[in-house]
């Protein structure tokens, strides 16, 4: 009986694997951007008002619409309650919020991890698969053309092939003595719960989230870059509380990031043979600081929620 169950499970696992191939398995973290000299300015993307009134302008606007209103514009591709703009603030324009202008010029890129050249389309597919817990759009789909055109436009005038200041989320070094989940809980209550709600599940108006969920079934999944405590700490330190980025100390950012990422979220779609430990070893053991497959207060983390 047990054997039968296992093989049925393996079968479904294989068939879903066939149905939804993982576009970009490698979600390991980006290299840090160089820091900005006092006198230097961040790249200034062009203004919306200056968009040309032609097919290019229309495609940029379409990409913009998908970026800021993903869940409504392409519901078939989004598995959770998020929009791209939730983690790439100011419509993908804001420095230190992994802006699209900092990303576009860095592809195609060779990555040792999967030993191949990864394209910009594949990077975006990765965010759909993991951050949006959804289905990646095909490389030649209109959605992909729109998002790529939008990014290309934002990068107008940016140097290509070099990391520019303000790209990615600036690294925040792990505090001495590590992080403290219990203290993170206090910071969460004081600084975050007012918006993301006490239970972390966000707040909606009608069908859509205004304050996105930080964990639970409608948040990013266990394969997303944000599940790394170091990446989340970097994002949070630079960008949260909304409008007050840079006000938390490094330690507070780490503690609250660890608290956030000690909660359950949708399973890693790369799950190896239905086994959390195997998945941990293959994808999480060497991927920054994360709690996937670890036991915290007697509970195994990484079981996933549906």
């Amino acid at each position: 009986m047990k054997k039968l169950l296992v093989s049925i499970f393996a079968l479904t696992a294989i068939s879903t694997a066939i149905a939804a191939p993982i576009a970009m398995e490698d979600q390991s973290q980006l290299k840090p951007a160089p820091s900005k000299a006092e006198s230097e300015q961040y790249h200034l993307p062009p203004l919306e008002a200056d968009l040309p009134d032609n097919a290019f302008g229309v495609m940029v606007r379409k990409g913009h619409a998908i970026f800021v209103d993903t869940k409504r514009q392409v519901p078939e591709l989004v598995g959770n309650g998020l929009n791209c703009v939730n983690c790439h603030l100011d419509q993908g324009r804001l420095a230190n919020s992994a802006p699209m202008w900092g990303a576009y010029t860095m592809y195609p890129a060779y990555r040792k991890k999967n030993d191949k050249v990864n394209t910009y389309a594949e990077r975006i597919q990765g965010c759909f698969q993991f951050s949006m817990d959804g289905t990646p759009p095909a490389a030649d789909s209109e959605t992909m053309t729109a998002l790529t055109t939008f990014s290309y436009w934002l990068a107008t005038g940016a140097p290509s092939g070099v990391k520019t200041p303000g790209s990615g989320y600036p690294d925040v070094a792990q505090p001495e003595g590590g992080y403290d989940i219990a203290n993170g809980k206090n910071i969460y209550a004081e600084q975050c719960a007012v918006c993301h709600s006490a239970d972390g599940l966000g707040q909606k108006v009608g069908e859509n989230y205004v304050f996105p969920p930080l964990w639970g079934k409608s948040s990013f999944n266990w394969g997303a870059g944000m599940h790394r405590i170091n990446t989340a700490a970097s994002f949070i330190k630079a960008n949260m509380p909304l409008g007050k980025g840079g006000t938390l100390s490094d330690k507070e950012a780490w503690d609250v990031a660890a608290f956030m990422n000690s909660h359950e979220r949708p399973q890693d779609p790369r799950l190896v043979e239905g086994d959390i430990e195997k998945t941990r070893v293959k994808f999480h053991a060497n991927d920054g600081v994360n709690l996937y497959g670890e036991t915290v207060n007697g509970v195994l983390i990484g079981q996933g929620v549906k």
Partner: protein
Amino acid sequence: MRAFKHLIYGGLLAAAISPAMADDGEKIYKQGGSQPGALACVTCHMPDGKGMDAGGFPKIAGDSAVYLSKQIHDFKKGLRENAIMLPIASALTEEEIKAVTQYMSSLDKVQVPEITRAKTPEGLGEQLAIRGDWSRSIPECVACHGPGGVGVGDTFPPLAGQGAKYLAAQLHAWQQGTRKNDQNDLMGHIARSLTEEEIIAVADYFAGLGK
């Protein structure tokens, strides 16, 4: 769908407060509270709760009861300085605050058109509302006040359909330090960053949404 929701909310409300209390709320609203100074709210906030902007009297219809109750306590504590509301708020008992805010919350709210962040903004007011100005750490107003400024939960009040004069007065109050009741200065730093021209534009914009 909306009607259905009203039904649910109505049901919840009915279950949460006894009919006697709802009547009390209406009575306080229309005739004033038990203590001297607790003037009838209806005089200024109007029978439909939509207020009267010429006098600077805000719309309170359909706002969260928790939000309204917090404001009354904030007037009392001096976290919102206002010569008209201070004596009124101070004259209300805890029971009366609870009852009258429930009643205000039960009045019909304004209908707000759905405006998403995908829209291309027209004019300075809408620009601030759906784009913000991140070079000054000003997020899109709708990121906290909800799409079209409908308000979110018990903390983020609706801006849509609120009087322009009142909205501008609140932004000025934050600038002058006479309103300091927002958690962690979430709203205060934004108000202080706005120029006079921006305050007028964004107040007009939200006042023009929703009827």
